[in-house]
């Protein structure tokens, strides 16, 4: 049987000519159904690019992405995305944002069913009191949870979470981590979590896979995490295995990170620091 999600030799570059950046090179990844995997990597290494590829927002230059054996082309309701910057529509309330997604995926629901569905998922992220509020009135953590609720409410088969917690303070992050694990257990979805926090990856995932620093980033050696579920942060923190795993991953990241620095020096390549102007990115009166 084919794997649930499979990336075969996926490469992606942005731009062309002199300004071309080879972001991802030969990325190979297999995820089984119901798995929780975490990708850790340095900032700018191409994590969001990887998520966008799987989500179907951009196409790989080389290689292919297979979901249940079928080639991915374009976004689909089977993949729910939680964007790094929440991406809620500020002119819709919490209810409106989630409803827009639900209506799209379940067009046959009648009014009461629709409301019930929306409320169920908003309740799942503990935001029922904020149903009628606008995203601008919510804190960062609350927005993030709305974004999770929106993705979950589409009932996707896999959830792609792009650094959902990295913009939050440590306390909020801790409680949302627990929530994400609970949601994963309850909903039995496959989850791919992008993070820059190794501890977070160890706490939540079955496997932690480092993304080597870019350019030409690729997935490195994977680390299997065997702590029993449901996971308990305090217990894990006290577990000697936790320290071992963590140090192993950090040492690995250090090594690939240093390698990057070393290779740069050897070749005397000046750091490629051009401003990258993303097209269509004007912020309007926000």
């Amino acid at each position, binding site marked *: 049987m084919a794997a649930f999600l499979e990336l075969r030799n996926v490469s992606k570059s942005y731009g062309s000519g002199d300004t071309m950046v080879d972001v991802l090179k030969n990325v190979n990844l297999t995820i089984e159904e119901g798995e929780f995997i975490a990708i850790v990597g340095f900032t700018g290494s191409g994590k969001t690019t990887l998520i966008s590829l799987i989500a179907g927002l951009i196409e790989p230059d080389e290689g292919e992405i297979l979901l249940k054996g079928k080639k991915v082309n374009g976004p689909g309701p089977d993949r729910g995305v939680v964007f790094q910057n929440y*991406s809620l529509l500020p002119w819709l309330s919490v209810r409106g944002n989630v409803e*827009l997604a639900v209506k799209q995926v379940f067009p046959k629901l009648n009014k009461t069913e629709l409301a019930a569905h929306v409320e169920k998922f908003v309740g799942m992220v503990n935001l029922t009191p904020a149903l009628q509020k606008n995203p601008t009135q919510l804190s960062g953590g609350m927005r993030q949870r709305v974004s999770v609720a929106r993705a979950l409410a589409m009932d996707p088969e896999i959830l792609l979470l792009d650094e959902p917690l990295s913009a939050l303070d440590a306390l909020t992050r801790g409680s949302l981590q627990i929530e994400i694990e609970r949601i994963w257990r309850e909903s039995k979805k496959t989850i791919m979590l992008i993070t820059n926090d190794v501890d977070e990856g160890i706490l939540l995932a079955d496997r932690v896979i480092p993304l080597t620093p870019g350019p030409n980033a690729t997935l490195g050696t994977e680390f299997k995490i065997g702590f029993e579920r449901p996971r308990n942060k305090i217990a894990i923190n006290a577990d000697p295995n936790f320290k071992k795993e963590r140090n192993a991953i950090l040492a690995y990241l250090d090594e690939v990170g240093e390698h990057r620095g070393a290779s740069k020096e050897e070749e005397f390549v000046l750091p490629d620091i051009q401003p990258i102007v993303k097209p*269509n990115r004007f912020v309007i*009166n926000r």
Partner: protein
Amino acid sequence: MERVIKALKWIGLGFFEPLIMLIQGKEVEKNIRLVFRQIIVPVLSVFIFLGACNIGADYLFKVERDRKIEKTRTVQGDAAAKQMQECIDSGDESCKPNSLPSPADVKKGAISLWEDHKSISAKKSAFKEKTAAINKKRKEAGQKAIVYTGRPSFVDQIYTSLKTVFAGFLLAALLAIPAGIVLGLSETLRTSINWIIQILKPVSPVVWLLLVSMVVKTVLANSDSDKSFVISFISVGLCSMWATLVNTAMGVSSVDQDYLNVSKVLRLGVFSNVFKVILPASIPMIFTGLRITLSVSWMVLIAIELLAQSPGLGSFVWEEFQNGANDSNAKIIVAMFVIGIIGFMLDRIMMFIQKLASFDSK
């Protein structure tokens, strides 16, 4: 009280807040400073402005007076000059030299315009009463009612101008918003039409007016609708729509990539994509465009009325200028202030609507 302050802020009169706080005795020291800066100084500056006008008007009056006396002297001799001087100094309206009116003159002009309006409306209602019976009969017979055709008062002119500007603004919005959306959505269309827009945008109101009247004259040749009204509102619309067109196209084409990604991930259809994501995201830009459009409408309206001889404030100014009566200049200045104040109010109203429509202030 909180609510009153909030309401004042909403309609753009937030500068009254410190005064209200002061009356309530809250944060006295801070609010005294605020009242001083936001109310007393602006009011003072108005007085300084009036004073400067007065001095300027006085000076121009003296120059004009001396010239008039000199002129009488060379043409009619010393005796007539002396008589003229006495006449002017006595303040007699008949020999008053024609110069920049002083604030007092302007006030007089305003009062006389108001009196004129009252007498005209009295005449109008009298006329209505008189013709009521006849008009009823005519209506039953399927004939047109007899309407008052006397001279319009200043207030009637304001009303006509407002009517024209709203018609023009509506036309501009109806043309520019849909066109802007279409242009914003299609890059190809945008680049292919860009030149035409860039060329038409700076065309002067005068040219639009001529162009429109060429067309309207032919199209409405056999209809008895109000041609001058149609011509002026269409010209106003065409002159002012560009700001909205360009802003809408720009807003639609530059929607935040994040929102577009959401739309893609949810796989919204074209309709939902436009109405649920793209349009709401560009509302602030569209309203900025509409606000510019309205103020441009008001500005060109006066010029267009003046040229087209269609009734309204513009033609009022022009007629007064040609009229050359003693208080004409004062009346022109009154009209100037009325035009300015109405323009300001229109802008405030648009700002208010803009606030209501933008999602970030909710």
